[in-house]
């Protein structure tokens, strides 16, 4: 039983070393493809864009369910869309091209 335990421990150690050293080995072997990740600012702007879209949808739902008057809705909606445009402009400027596809909910 002791021998089985020791063998299992070595197997476990090998698995652990394999899992942990993966990124280091890949880097050393030159296999690691430098992934393109959005910059912090881009990530922040994308989050802000998603939040703004949600706000626009919520304001519309608030209007339809009678929580907002038409006048208030138009004022809020205009403000939100203007804010959304600013975010989109900043994203465009950052990307230098078309806004990337969103993955938020």
């Amino acid at each position, binding site marked *: 039983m002791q021998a089985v335990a020791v063998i299992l421990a070595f197997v476990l150690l090998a698995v652990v070393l394999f899992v942990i050293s*993966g*990124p*280091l080995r890949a880097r050393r072997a030159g296999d690691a493809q430098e992934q393109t990740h959005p910059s912090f600012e881009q990530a922040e702007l994308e989050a802000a864009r*998603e939040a703004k*879209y949600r706000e*626009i949808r*919520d304001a519309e739902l608030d209007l*339809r369910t009678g929580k907002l008057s038409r006048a208030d809705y138009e004022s809020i909606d205009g403000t939100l869309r203007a804010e*959304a445009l600013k975010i989109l402009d900043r994203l465009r400027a950052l990307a230098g091209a078309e806004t990337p596809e969103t993955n938020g909910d």
Partner: protein
Amino acid sequence: MPVLGRICLLLALVICVYGIGASLYGARSGRVEFSDSGRRAVYALAIVLTAAFAVLEVAFLRNDFAFNTVADTSSRTTPTFYRAAAVWSSQEGSLLLWAWLLSLWSSLALFLVRKRMRDIAAYATAILLGFGAFFIALMIFYATPFATRSPAPVEGVGLDPLLRFPTMMIHPPMLYSGYTLCTIPLAFAMGALIARRVDADWIRATRRFAFAAWLFLGVGILLGARWSYAELGWGGYWGWDAVENASLMPWLTGTAFLHSLMVQEKRGMLKVWNVSLVLATGTLAIMGTFLVRSGVLNSIHAFGGATLGVPFVTLIGVLIAGSIYLVVSRREMLRSEHRLDSLLSRESIFLANNVVLVALCFVIFWGTYFPLISEALTGNEASVGPPWFDRYTVPLALVLVLLSGIGPVIAWRRATLANARRNFVAPLLSALVALVALLAAGVSHKPFALAMFCCAAFVLGAVGQEFVRGTLARRAIAGEAPPVALLALVRRNRRRYGGYIVHIGIAVLFVGVAASSSFQHAVEQRLSPGSSSRVGAYTLRYVRPTATVTPKNDAAHTGSTLSLGAVVDVSKHGHHVATLRPSEGFYDSGEPAQGTVGHLIGGQAVSHISMSAGPTRDVWTAIAPDISAPALARIVTIGNRTLPADEAVVALGFLARAYLKNPPPAQFHFIVSPLVMWIWLGGLIVFGGGLIAIWPAPSAVRRRVAMRSRARSAHGLARA
């Protein structure tokens, strides 16, 4: 196999130390491969702790009494079902469960953000591994689950009979999942503060884990309440026990966070508040574990009290000091981007709701920790009981339920008084109708219950109105049939309508609490067969005694050696309502000094209650048979004197027959409580709504919605 378990723990500690170092180095130097390696250390930790947990689980299932934990908390007579759950009934096993669940949830969280927020995630990884290292170090240096004894005893002590119930199989893993999930938003919040990236990104990444923590904690709390009500012999579901409170506190702050995070996501406001709530929730989760595991409390839950107090207090001190330092040093970054547009807005209601939730948490914190602080300072034991808690929590709960009805009918940013007036008509009418009906039914003598019923009616009116209006709006757009429109409405606005369903559940739950605590009838009486007792409108008659012998025949399947009970007939106005069979199980103490027969029934006696539950009322019964009656005691004495150990069970047969033939009067506890089922039903609605809110939207729908919003934005902007 204990060797393998010990090696796993050592390996786990080494992995934690390596992972912390690699993550911090990766974050500071910008070398992504080290951050990734640190993240993978969490996966490795999960693998190793799974192996360790499996070793212990197998030891329990195989009755390997060489393990101290197995010998102390299990036995051959413990049913297999409960042997599997006995792992977390011990101090050591529960620490292992904590660390294991932490590693699993952390792996999932870090896997989901593996391509995002690398700077924050690296610090979060280090913090999560820090928690892992703490619990693993406790298991290595203070309470190892893999300690052994030689020679191994032939039989174990057995699982505490109070824990031999199905809900206790699920309650601790649920609660611990909640606690461990609470540490994930905490780790990401700290990571965001350290990395100085305090936008809504970390909130978006960890929102679902905060929700999952809330869900698991809630389910755990409710299962605990159900266990207390349906299994313990006192007839209540909430006793303001310190350990119950410890799990409720992070749930309350977590609830506050789930509301206020929406304000930060939408408006960039309440950043200090949100980060503080997350840090408080995580710290309260650790404090909850401390209360159960440090042995500081004298409670049923604090079984296995040990000397873990100092390490836990140190960890909590570090967490509090670190949290305060991070929030204060980053206060400039945490400034709100906007101000409240109007006091009549959903943001304001959320803020008010947060204040009430935190006030509730503070009251419970004070009532829970004050006795400990007082005892530490003065040396005198002090305690505050349910009346103290009720004095403060009942009014706060009323305000909370009322706010959960006001919130849904108020718009974000600002609402006009005219709109508000229009939106409050239906909820106020619901409350008024409830008030008139209740006054007509004569419930005016319980003002708090009356107020709670009216508040709940207000909530149901408000949320019902929201569903009706939303469905009508949806129909107007898509021309769908009402049920289709309703489903589409919920599917497309999961968070909003899932949240509303949660509010309905909370209202239903509080109606159950108010009714059952205000209008309960309870009687404790000594009865002989044939006699009866009147409880409220019900008559309960002790028809005849019952008895079973040996664990195999135990009707409750809890492994009792002897079970004595009664058949109780319940009737109302002469009509039969139900037949109940409460009993009390007697268990083997394992103490030879009590004699060959005496030890078989000398362990803990546990009440197995019987009840008739319904949507309008529960009739609840418990029995405490008098086993020390002279005729029964004589059989035990003679058996002890004459029977060898392997024949001692014969005496139990005589004892059971004597009890059935000439039963001594038994002590009964009868309770008739209205609407208790509403508590469990409300809980189910809450968690159903929570699941809807947490469920991810299909990616295709997300893309379509986002694209449509983008197109509308562009169109609207061009229009402007």
